[in-house]
């Protein structure tokens, strides 16, 4: 599916975001969420939350997902160990998402130091992000 008016990104996206190397979404990915029934709050970007103003402007418009469930769990353990269970807001459940081309674009953005299956998902403005939720795993 190509980028059309129907599937446009939010007006707050900076120019050239997502990067040209991002591809259509597709397949199973995993994301940390806070509840057994994820809500839209689990799928808001930092740009939408107004957080991490110093982070890369395009990264702030994306959502972190992993192609590998184990990497999502490792991320949780890594963050909690470093910042305490209450030091950051991070979901403690792993949700399996099934993304399609209608959900937006994604790009492999592995951790530079310890390469993993981290991807950034830039959702289209009109997409129901929660609809990607499949199950808690």
């Amino acid at each position, binding site marked *: 599916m190509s980028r059309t008016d129907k599937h446009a990104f939010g007006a707050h996206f900076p120019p050239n975001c997502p990067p040209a190397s991002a591809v259509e979404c597709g397949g199973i990915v995993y994301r940390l969420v806070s509840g057994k029934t994820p809500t839209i709050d689990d799928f808001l970007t930092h740009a939408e939350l107004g957080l991490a103003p*110093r982070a890369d402007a395009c990264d702030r418009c994306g959502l972190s997902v992993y192609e590998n469930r184990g990497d999502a769990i490792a991320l949780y353990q890594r963050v909690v160990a470093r910042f305490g269970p209450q030091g950051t*807001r991070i979901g403690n459940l792993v949700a399996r998402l099934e993304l399609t081309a209608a959900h937006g674009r994604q790009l492999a953005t592995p951790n530079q*130091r310890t390469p993993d299956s981290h991807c950034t998902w830039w959702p289209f403005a009109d997409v129901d992000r929660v609809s990607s939720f499949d199950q808690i795993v």
Partner: protein
Amino acid sequence: MMWKLDGQELDPKLLGSLEPERVLFEYEGPRSYVARDLAGGLLFAHQCGEAADRWRYAIVPFSTELLDALESGQLDLRSALGQPWLWIVDIGEKGHPVRCVRSSLSAIPEECLPRPGVMLYPDHDPAPEIFPFGRIEESILLIRGRRVIIDADLAGLYRVATKRLNEQVKRNADRFPDDFVFVLTESEKQQVVANCDHLHKLRFSPNLPHAFTEHGTLMAANLLKSPLAAKVSVYVVRAFVKLREFLSDTDFSIKSGDLEAQLQDDDEQVIALIDAIR
């Protein structure tokens, strides 16, 4: 979680813009980073709270030496934050400091702090289950007739700075009798340096190293109050026990071998008994 801040309120601009000079740990934004104060001094900022409209950081004065130690896995995050001065700074939506309070590490709720022993980079975190047993075993030396681990090795296993480990010994001297820990003499230190390649750096240390016996390694792990040290100490004790059993078996074989040689041919029953015990 954003806990109630207590302490001396300071002008949020006092520490400068706190713009990250280098991000050390990033997860959807900079969580640990270094910045410069107004005078150009190095600051280490580590996230310790988050709300819908702001991020909270513990900020301490830092040095390039500490930064090197932190990045190379010689210094854990909790120890890095244990500086004489500490400020809690809230960074608002626009990325500017909006509140600053003079505080201390002990004022930060435990659930908002890094676990003791956890390193900046995940690849520096020890995973006790994959510790090669030999690494611990090789650290056990025989000095003054006792099997011991030198402080630098023990600190490495427990993932704390050697200085911090020895501080605990000094502060809790009553818990470390001579059969738990002792200080090497200069000649013992030279012997250790000469015989243990991995301890060659001790040559440049002005201090005499501490040697921890099996009991001392356990006591040190307890005092460090680090879950990681507690976990690793189990492996350390197992290494001591395994080595003891191995040497004990070896001693018996040597002694029984000597005995066997002294026996006459007609002492077959005794030889059979020795074989059975083996």
